[in-house]
């Protein structure tokens, strides 16, 4: 069996753009004025925590469009994203920082693509999880502490599992590529 490479369609591109927008959800939050020093990893962790909050809200919206097992997985993944946000927030607090708080779901909803059916919801989910994988792998390169890198590596693995679950829910092979960077 040959690896399946996702096709880039206009709809996919729009969904991908929405996922990229979500990835920058922390961008409008005010920067910390005191607390962790530069180079501590707090800023990068803050971006990841904000992204995880947005992802949890996105999975709430995605789940509303899914049925059966896929709907159950959406609930599981949403809970995982919330746990990721909490875990990263704890790391920020250890540095003396104040992690970003999640916003009400309706505040994120305008950034989601239109999801009229299950296929569109799964496409957005795929784009979102790819962005999450990429964000966490990229973050590894700037985090200075072992505990930070370990936590983010563990979260990246869970995001890859979530992405595989989206593939499987879409009827595609769960494992498609030997190197999963989140930018396929």
């Amino acid at each position, binding site marked *: *069996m040959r*690896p399946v490479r996702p096709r880039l369609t206009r709809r996919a591109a729009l969904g991908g753009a929405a996922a990229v927008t979500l990835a920058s959800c922390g961008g409008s939050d005010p920067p910390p004025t005191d607390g962790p020093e530069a180079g501590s990893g707090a800023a990068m962790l803050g971006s990841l925590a904000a992204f995880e909050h947005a992802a949890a809200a996105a999975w709430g919206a995605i789940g509303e469009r899914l049925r059966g097992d896929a709907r159950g*997985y959406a609930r*599981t*993944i949403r*809970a*995982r994203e919330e*746990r990721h946000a909490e875990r990263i927030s704890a790391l920020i607090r250890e540095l003396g920082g104040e992690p970003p708080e999640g916003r009400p779901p309706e505040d994120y909803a305008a950034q989601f693509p239109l999801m009229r059916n299950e296929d569109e919801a799964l496409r957005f989910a795929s784009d979102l999880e790819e962005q999450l*994988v990429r964000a966490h*792998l*990229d973050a*590894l*390169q700037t985090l200075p502490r*072992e*505990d930070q*890198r*370990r936590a983010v*590596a*563990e979260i*990246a*693995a*869970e*995001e*890859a*599992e*979530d*992405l*595989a*679950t989206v593939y*499987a829910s879409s009827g595609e*092979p*769960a*494992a*498609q*590529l*030997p*190197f*999963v*960077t*989140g930018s396929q």
Partner: protein
Amino acid sequence: MSTGPSRRKALALAAGAALALSRSAAAAAQLSDVDQLERLLALEQRLQSLYETALERDAVEPGLGETLLEHEREHVRGLEMALRARGRRSPRATVPPPQVGTAFASRPAFARFAIDLETEAVGAYQGVLATIRSTRLLLPLGSIMTSGAQHVVALRQEAGHDLLAPA
């Protein structure tokens, strides 16, 4: 078919192999990058050998087995390249052949056995990603780790389990 004793035996074999390959997190922190890459290579070679044997014995659905085997070959190739780039001409890592027996007795049994080994490999990568000195290796090693995490999901599907482990 009772799989209890078979599963215990398979897990014991995996644990024995893991013992030879594993290091504590503290010890891992003291290892050189080359040591860490060699450890990962041994794990990947073991997985490659595992899928080769499973395909020979029809213990895995052929399409899935071929895909996972091809991925493992790519992982081995990538790690060997990284080692060569660090002056390791002939990687020391070796892997014993998979044990004959219960792990290959049925497709679900093999899937469960492979889940354990893939999970162990993912954990090893996480330890390395936390401690390795060369930041240039973080993305390539991370992308192998995430591939391994997806293997676990594919194998859970093969075993008839929920795709995501409970929290």
